[in-house]
C-alpha cells in the first residue's frame, strides 16, 4: 500500500487514540485545577488559561493523614500479596512441572479449574472466618485473600513456563547432587524470570486496583480505592480531593505498566491466547 492510501487510516487512528486519551487526560487536568474553578467549569478551561494549574490539590491530599495511610495500605497489600503469590505459585508450579507424583495432571486440572470461581462466592464465609480469627481489617487478611485468588492463574502460568526449561539443565543439576531446594532457588527461579515478571505485574495491577475485597474485609485498613470511594459518596463537594487521589491511584500502576509493557503483554498472551 502506498503511503498516500495509508494516510486516511493514519489520521483516523490518530483521532481514535486522542479520543481514548481524553478521559485520563481530563482527570489529570481536573486534579490540577483549584476547587473553585472545578466547581463551575470543565477541565478544558485550563487549555485556555494554563496559569490556573496548581499543585495545591496534591499538597492538600498528601497533608491528609487518612489518604496517606490509604496509599501506604495499598502499597503494602499490592506488593506483599504479589511477592507471596509469586513464591507460592513458583513452588507449586515447579512440583507440577518437574516432580512427578500420582494424580498430578488431574490435580493440576482442578487447580486451573478454580480459575473461574468468582471471588464473590468466597466473600461471606471469609468475612465470617476473618471475624472469628482476628484477620478482619488487617493487611494480612487482604493479602492472603488476593494470593488465593491469584494462585490458579499463577500456577498455570509458571508451570507452563517452567516446562520450557530444557530437561538436561535440571537433570544435570540433579546429577551434580544439587538438592531440589537448590535446583529451585538457583536454577528455576532465575530461569523463569520473564514469566515471573509477567505474573507479578498482573497481580500487582489487579490487587492495586481492588475495591470489592478491601471494601468487604476491611474498615480502618483502607486502601486508596476504598478511601476514594468513601469520598465519592459525597461527590461534587470534594472533587478536588477525589481527582488527585484517583490520579495517584492510577499513575502508579500506569507507570508500572508503561515501563514493563512487554512483559505484561507477554503474560496476557500466555494466559489467554494459547492455541
Amino acid at each position, binding site marked *: 500500500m502506498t503511503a498516500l492510501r495509508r494516510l486516511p487510516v493514519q489520521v483516523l487512528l490518530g483521532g481514535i487514540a486522542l479520543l481514548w486519551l481524553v478521559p485520563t487526560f481530563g482527570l489529570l487536568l481536573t486534579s490540577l485545577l483549584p476547587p473553585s474553578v472545578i466547581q463551575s467549569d470543565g477541565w478544558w478551561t485550563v487549555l485556555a488559561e494554563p496559569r490556573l494549574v496548581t499543585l495545591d490539590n496534591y499538597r492538600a491530599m498528601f497533608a491528609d493523614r487518612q489518604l496517606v495511610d490509604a496509599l501506604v495500605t495499598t502499597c503494602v497489600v499490592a506488593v506483599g500479596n504479589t511477592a507471596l503469590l509469586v513464591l507460592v505459585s513458583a513452588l507449586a508450579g515447579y512440583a507440577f512441572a518437574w516432580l512427578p507424583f500420582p494424580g498430578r495432571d488431574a490435580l493440576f486440572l482442578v487447580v486451573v479449574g478454580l480459575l473461574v470461581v468468582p471471588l464473590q462466592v468466597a466473600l461471606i*464465609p471469609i468475612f465470617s472466618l476473618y471475624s472469628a480469627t482476628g484477620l478482619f481489617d488487617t493487611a494480612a487478611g487482604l493479602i492472603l485473600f488476593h494470593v488465593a485468588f491469584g494462585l490458579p492463574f499463577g500456577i498455570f502460568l509458571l508451570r507452563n513456563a517452567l516446562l520450557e526449561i530444557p530437561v538436561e539443565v535440571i537433570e544435570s543439576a540433579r546429577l551434580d547432587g544439587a538438592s531440589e531446594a537448590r535446583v529451585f532457588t538457583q536454577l528455576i527461579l532465575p530461569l523463569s524470570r520473564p514469566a515471573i515478571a509477567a505474573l507479578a505485574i498482573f497481580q500487582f495491577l489487579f490487587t492495586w486496583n481492588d475495591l*470489592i475485597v478491601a471494601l*468487604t474485609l476491611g474498615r480502618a485498613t483502607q486502601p486508596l480505592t476504598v478511601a476514594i470511594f468513601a469520598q465519592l459518596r459525597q461527590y461534587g463537594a470534594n472533587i478536588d480531593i477525589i481527582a488527585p487521589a484517583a490520579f495517584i491511584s492510577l499513575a502508579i500502576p500506569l507507570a508500572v505498566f508503561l515501563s514493563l509493557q512487554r512483559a505484561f503483554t507477554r503474560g496476557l498472551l500466555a494466559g489467554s491466547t494459547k492455541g
Partner: protein
Amino acid sequence: MVAVHTKPPRAVSRPSPAPAHPRHRTPGRWRRWLLAAAFLAPALAVLTVWIVYPTARTVLRSLFGRDPHEFVGLDNYHTLFTTDTLTTAIRNNALWVAVVPLTVTAIGTVLAVLTERIRWSAAFRTAIFMPMAVSMFAAGVIWHVMAEKDPQRGTLNAVVGAVHDAVSPTGVLANGRPSTPALTGDAGSGIALRDPVRPGQAAPLGLTGIPARDVPPGSVRAAIPPAAADQVTGTVFRDFSPGGGRPGVVEPGEAGIPGATVELRDAGGRVVATTRTAADGGFRFTGLAPGDYRLAIGPDTFAAPFAGVDWLGPKLITPTIMIAYVWMWAGFAMVLIAAGLSAIPREVLDAARVDGASEWQVFRRVTVPLLAPVLTVVLVTMVVNVLKVFDIVMAVASESTQDDANVIALAMWRTSFSGDGDYGLGSAISVVLFLLVLPALAFNIRRFRREGRR
C-alpha cells in the same frame, strides 16, 4: 533484560518428561512424593481455605435464611427471581452479556487490523491499551467526571451541547405568554394569533410574563412597520409598560423582542414562511398572494438552552457504564487479536489478494475465519468479565441509581454487606453468579485438554 522465552508455554496435560535418567542417588518413591507434597503444600492450603472451603460453605449457606439455623430449601432462589431489584440486576447483566463482549471484540478486531498497516502502531496501541492498567474503579471516577450533567463541567455533555446548539440554537426568550386573548397557545407549542390576517395588515403580537432582565440584548422601543398591499407586518413586543398600559397595543416604553421567530401559516395551518424580528421586534412578510393567513411566534423562540443529557440518571446509567467499560477493554481485545493476526501467514493473505479479492473480501473470507479461535477466546473472556462486573458500576452509579444500574455481583454485595445483611440470599446470588460462569470453565478446560493432545 533477561532471556526472553518467545515460544508459547507448553501445553497442559502433555506428559511431562519423567526423569528417566539413572539418578546419582535415587530417592525412594515415597521421598519424591513427599518432596512434591512439600512444594505443593502452601498453594494447596491457601486454595483450600480461601477458595474450596468457602465455595462449599456458600452453596450450603444459600439454603438457609437470614437466620443461619433456619433451613429454607430453595426459597432464596425463589426470592432472587421474584424481587424487583434482583431481577433488574439479572436483566441488566443479560444486557451486558449481549452487548459488551461483541462490541469490545468488534472494536478490537477493527483496531488490530487497522494498526497493522500504520506507522507509530506501537504508540497507538499503547494509547488504546492504557486504560487496562487503570483500575476499574479509577475508570469509574473518570467517567463520573466525564458524564456530569452540567454541560459547563461534564465533557460528554459539553460535546453533545456544542452539537445541539449548532443544530437548534437556544431561543431568545426563556418564557412568555399571550398578553391578550387575541393570541392563543404557549411557549411550548408556539403562540398564534387567533384571527386570520390578510396581506396589507399589521399585527401587534404582545407577550407578557417576561422579566425585564430576560429582554434580549439589543432591544429597542417596539414599533410596527407599515404594511404594503402584498405584505403582512407586525411586531413582537414585551406588552408591559410601567403603570400597566393597554394590552395588545404598542405603547411608548414597551420593548421590541429581537430575534424571535415568526411563522406565517396558510389557512390549512401549514407554515409558508418564517422570519426573525428586528431590534424593534418588527417583522415583514412580502410578496403574498391575497387570502387568509395566520401569524404565530414559533416555539423555537422559547427553546430552552441545552440542559445536558442525564448520563448518570436512571435511564442512561447502564449504557454510560458500558461505554466506560468498552473504553477500558477494547485495548485488551486489540492486543490479543493483533497477536493472532501476526500469526496468520502473510502468503495466505497475499495469495487471496493476487487472486483479485478486495481488502474487504480478504478480511471477511480469510482473516476472520483464521482468527476465529482468538476471537472466541476474547469473547469468552469478556463474557466472564462482564458477568462479574462490579467496581465500575459501584464507582459510576451513585447510591440513588444503583437500583437501576444493578448487576449480579453488585446485588450480591449490597444484599450481603450493605444494610440488609442477608447472607442466605447473598449466598444464593453468588451461587447463581458461579453457575453462570461455569460454562466458561468447561470451555477453558476443554481448550487445555485439546492443546494437550497436540
